[in-house]
């Protein structure tokens, strides 16, 4: 049974529609990628799933219930957490305070300290800096904090919007290594990226978006097929969907 099942989703901002016929299925523990050029509608798609962007048509079923039209604060309590583009950590607050905010979205209030200890194990650098202002962390450390903050709510599904944005190649490898470990622990992940090869190497399948539509669904093996990837990404040749 799918953890997340989306059909014919339309979403946008005011009268401007950005996403058309969005669809995605995610099973528990799966890692699914979404790639595409700037302006393809990837972030709008994630925003609509998390409740921060208004979905006009279509259905979003999560964990057996419809979440379309629900508030972000209700959706996170159902077990769907999001790490927004640009990390969006609270730079004026300490690392510890950022993590405490992440606890707000927990379904069960017990086990909060255990959840914080677990993310500290996953990201040991946060232990060192727990009382430091988050704005003083490096970009990679801030990305780790943003992921950790989402994880302390113990989500069933984690949405990540461009986690590699503004990071050095070494740090990107570290961040994606952590995503694999999170997935191993049973959390499903949907990751939006512009670096197609990077996400396709760890995703069970990857949706390619262009101009607000999902144009193709590629398998992990397709990551090696440059022609197929280019055709889906840039619209050259025939779209697969």
């Amino acid at each position, binding site marked *: 049974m799918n953890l997340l099942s989306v059909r014919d989703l339309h979403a946008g901002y005011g009268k401007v529609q950005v996403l058309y016929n969005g669809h995605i299925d995610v099973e528990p523990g799966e890692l699914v990628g979404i790639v595409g050029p700037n302006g393809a509608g990837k972030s709008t798609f994630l925003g609509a799933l998390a409740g*921060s962007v208004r979905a006009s048509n279509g259905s979003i079923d999560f964990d057996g219930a419809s979440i379309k039209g629900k508030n972000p*604060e209700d959706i996170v309590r159902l077990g769907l957490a999001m790490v927004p583009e640009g990390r*969006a950590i*609270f*730079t*004026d607050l300490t690392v510890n305070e950022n993590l405490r*905010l992440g606890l*707000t979205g927990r379904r069960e209030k017990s086990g909060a300290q255990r959840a914080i200890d677990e993310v500290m194990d996953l990201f040991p650098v946060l232990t060192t800096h727990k009382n430091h202002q988050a704005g003083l962390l*490096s970009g990679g450390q*801030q990305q780790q904090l943003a992921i950790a903050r989402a994880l302390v709510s113990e989500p069933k599904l984690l949405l990540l919007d461009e986690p590699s944005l503004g990071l050095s190649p070494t740090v990107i490898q570290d961040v994606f290594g952590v995503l694999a470990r999170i997935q191993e622990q049973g959390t499903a992940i949907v990751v939006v990226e512009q670096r197609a090869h990077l996400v396709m190497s760890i995703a069970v399948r990857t949706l390619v978006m262009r101009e607000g539509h999902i144009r193709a669904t590629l398998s992990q093996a397709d990551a090696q097929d440059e022609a197929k990837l280019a055709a889906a990404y840039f619209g050259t040749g025939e779209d697969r969907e």
Partner: protein
Amino acid sequence: MIQTILDALSYGGIYGLAALGIGLVFGVMRLVNFAHGELIAIGAYLLIVTIDLGLPLSILIAVTGTAILALLMEFGVFKRLRLAGPAVLLIASFGVSVFLQRFYEIIFGALPLSGQIAPWMAGVIEFGDTTITRGSVVTIILALVLLSAMWFFIEKTTLGLQIRAASSDFQTARLLGVRSNRVIGAAFVFSGVLAAAVAFVLVTQRGSVDPLFGVNITILALVGTVIGGLGSLQGAALGGFAVGATISLLNSFLGNYRVYTYTWLFILVIIVLLVRPGGLISNKAVKERV
């Protein structure tokens, strides 16, 4: 000289409380609430009309009533404008302000309503050759207690943490599970409580209240929130304190020329903003690193 310093501290404290009340609501809603003055006015009206019940009960009624009116503003007007831009919110707050001024006129009359609230505050305390007014001492203590309580609430409680987060980035706070209605409602309630405290001090000084009672201090407190740094709660309190203390000091030092107090105040305000356009405590003090 001691009285001058105490006056500056008490003025600063009371303007700091007013600015913090405005800053709390601005932080979570990006709403510059001009109707904060009418919260101060209703606090003063409630104190005067209920003072015969005894000061403690009168204060309780004033604080509760002001907090309820603040919540009514939120639920009746501003909640319906959540998706509107700052300009719409600003104009709406003007509308609420004028509506309440006319409403007070109908209920309490256009002329000042007089009453003695805590007359013991008008007395003096003597230290040898020095005399200081009780009012300034009580005001300083009240401001210190309330600012400390607000500091504790904002810095040490979970709801305070959520308000700070919502003040910084409302959308991200909601994604983490922070309930928007709860933090905005809390900000309005605390804004109302602080307005009632300001009303208490002002009405004990003036002895009367009229429909425009809170307008002047609200405008100057708004200046304080801008000087302190819009979006920063510490900045709002600090900026409000700076404006109040400066007014008091200018009044003392200008003597017969005190008619120019506001001229000098706004010259200083312009200089501060030219040097620090983001205010004394900028909300973006920490630069993003990559």
